[in-house]
């Protein structure tokens, strides 16, 4: 058994972490190395023009502060998704109606924030001493002490949100049509990570002291499998987490890094105020005024238009 635990507890996590870090850096560099030839923000509100017209600083930012604000709204509260509507054609009155449709926004927001809080909570296993904010988050998250050990709100929320995101994909014929196998894989992977974690907490208890011993060992590059043994459920959970991390750089989940680089969102709409440089700009073949006048000189003279050359 030791060999298996060695593999699951030490080799796989190192490999996954390696793939995750190198893969993500590779992806980001690949994007970052491609230049942004044109400044192309999508503007979602009034521009800054005349002083008496109120500009929308966050929806149509014209400076860095505005861009930071816009990006913060996008990343923290999914501003664009909040705009979502559902278009319906009312055949009877032949009218298109645009209904409020905030469920996707809510589902996505709940999922991502739960995931973040869960990740932060896990820091208690990866740090010694445990930072106070981690303890605070844990306390706050376990506020509803309905069960022993305390039920974490985010555990429930992430399950609900992921189930919704999965059902939504399956239930809507349009979404089914656009979905790729990898879209399902991502949800299933996340669900299995969440479920295995919750099961471990409530049904297949493992020795947390040993878990922490292993984790700290791995992180300090002095890995060893704890003598007391942790139990298989933990290794199942850990394996799924590793699979998720290793898969991330090759999947659509890289959007977590990519969103920061999106040129329609992270550029200021100061286009006519400040020149943007295209690094690969090259001269092109144009039709000069001289060539143009040469072709039309006779007619222009007749029409009394001014000429460069008589």
């Amino acid at each position, binding site marked *: 058994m030791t060999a298996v635990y060695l593999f699951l507890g030490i080799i796989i996590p190192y490999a996954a972490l390696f793939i995750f870090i190198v893969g993500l850096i590779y992806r980001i560099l*690949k*994007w970052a190395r*491609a230049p*942004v*030839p*044109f400044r*192309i923000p*999508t*503007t*979602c*509100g*009034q*521009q800054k*023009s*005349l002083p008496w*017209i109120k500009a929308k600083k966050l*929806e149509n930012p014209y400076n860095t502060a505005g861009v930071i604000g816009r990006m913060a709204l996008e990343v923290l509260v999914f501003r*664009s*998704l909040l*705009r979502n*509507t559902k*278009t319906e054609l009312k055949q009877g009155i*032949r*009218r*298109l109606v645009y209904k409020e449709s905030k469920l996707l926004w809510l589902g*996505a927001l709940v999922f991502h924030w739960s995931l973040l809080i869960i990740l932060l909570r896990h820091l208690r296993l990866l740090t010694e001493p445990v930072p106070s904010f981690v303890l605070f988050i844990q306390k706050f998250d376990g506020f509803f002490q309905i069960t022993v050990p305390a039920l974490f709100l985010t555990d429930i929320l992430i399950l609900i949100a992921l189930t919704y995101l999965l059902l939504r994909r399956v239930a809507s*014929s*349009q*979404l089914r049509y*656009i979905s*790729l*196998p*990898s*879209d399902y894989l*991502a949800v299933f992977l996340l669900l299995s990570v969440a479920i295995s974690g919750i099961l471990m907490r409530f049904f297949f208890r493992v020795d947390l002291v040993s878990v922490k011993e292993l984790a700290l060992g791995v992180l300090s590059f002095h890995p060893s499998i704890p003598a007391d043994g942790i139990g298989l459920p933990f290794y199942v959970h850990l394996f799924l987490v590793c699979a998720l991390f290793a898969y991330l750089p*090759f999947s*659509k989940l890289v959007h977590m890094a*990519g*969103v920061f*680089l*999106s*040129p*329609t969102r992270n550029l200021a709409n100061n*286009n*006519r*105020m400040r*020149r943007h440089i295209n690094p690969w*700009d090259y001269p*092109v*073949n144009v*039709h*000069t*005024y001289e060539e*143009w006048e040469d072709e*039309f000189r006779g*007619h*222009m003279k007749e*029409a009394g*238009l*001014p000429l460069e050359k008589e």
Partner: protein
Amino acid sequence: MTDTTQKPEELLKLDYTPPKKGWMETPVDFKKGTYCYSAPQKHQEYLGLPYPRQWQPFDKDWKLPENWKQIILEGMNDRLSKYRSFRLYMDICVRCGACADKCHFFIGSGDPKNMPVLRAELLRSVYRKYFTLPGKLFGKIGGARELTEDVLKEWFYYFYQCTECRRCSVFCPYGIDTCEITMMARDLLSLVGCNIGWIVEPASNCLRTGNHLGVPPHAFKDTLDFAIDEVEELTGVKVEASVNRKGAELLFITPSADYFASPHWYTFLGYLMLFHEIGLDYTWSAYASEGGNFGLFHSAEMLKRLNAKMYAEAKRLGVKWILGGECGHMWRVIHQYMDTINGPADFLEEPVSPITGTKFENTKSTKMVHICEFTSDLIKNNKLKLDPSRNNHWKLTFHDSCNPARAMGLIEEPRYIIKNVCNHFYEMPDNTIKENTFCCGSGAGLGSDENLEMRLRGGLPRANAVKYVKEKHGVNLLTCICAIDRAVLPTLLQYWVPGVEVSGLHELVGNALMMKGQKERTTDMRGTPFEEKES
């Protein structure tokens, strides 16, 4: 015109349920009325486009160059390394579907490949196959597919069924902009000589004569003289306008449709009247006689070639800065591209209104001001005498054109002008205006007659919102600040909402403008009698 004889109620029989068979297995069907024809060979040749030839999308054999696949893949590789937007948007879509029902073409056609997400997947699937590890390893399971001639034809069909309006990018949580993807796809298609006539012909005309319509300089002068006469007939005021005049303070550039098409013409008259009334020292140019730029719908290179004339002409004439007329995509080019591709405009001065002294701080680098910024500043500073009751016969609504709304944020300036020149203004529903505005359905070079059914479908959401305000408020005029809008919306409205006319904003300004020395005016520019003044 095409033989689109379907009645609106037939066209409205829409089914948004996708077919049973997967999209990769559904080949494209070139249905008459839903695609554009290719370009005449002479125009392809004039522009020096690769592999010029006679071919049509409905032909079985597209006469592609032998190594077409290699050309496309190399072209893709090149663009992936030149455009962060392209590479990023190939990678990060999660297929959440928020964009799906935001596209006017999907709403109007129900064709699932018109969902922005799937339109992009048409290209992404090929990207995965040739440029990503999972795609190479897992093929179809990994969302990847081979580049075949059928795939290329599908690209042609669907990337010329996108008007680059960017509405989907407003709703995308990562800002994925289908416009960027469409631009890349069209650029790639052009590498193997697959272009459409309605883009290549105007671009070729524009390169040669200076404008999309191919109007030569002497005809331009004639038209201007004709307009001057018409203004005199209408108002009793003889306005002045010069062409290619050196030493003028400003150069004015507007889309060529304004001086050759209807209802653009009345906006053109409006400009002439306004500039005369404020005593603006400006000139027109017959060389840079086009505000629009169909190069934007073709490739970054064509965009730059056509746009170069604006700065070149401003420099030659020695003007201080440039004023630009009402147009949609023209302003995407000027606002987001011109300074980068053909700047710096260090030979011009930072724009200051010669009438009000207002500094247009927001244009200090590009040095080109939008006519709505210019006119709203005139009104704000009480420089115009306006009688809005002269537009009382219009109950109007305002259509935000895609590019001024979503690539600039020019939203309140036109509304401020409207509120000062009209008494009866009604907004369409919130989900269809400002940054949420719906495209006319014919932008980005798709306004050709043979494509009429698709245009009517794509224009459905816009027309439907107009219908709503027509029924609710009796709206009889749709005002817009885009030349393509003015060219295509009359057809669209005639089909979906008969009884609503289309106008430019400066037509209404011209109607309301009280000119010094004017005779008693009894009709608007269209010859419609003014209504009795409200007491």
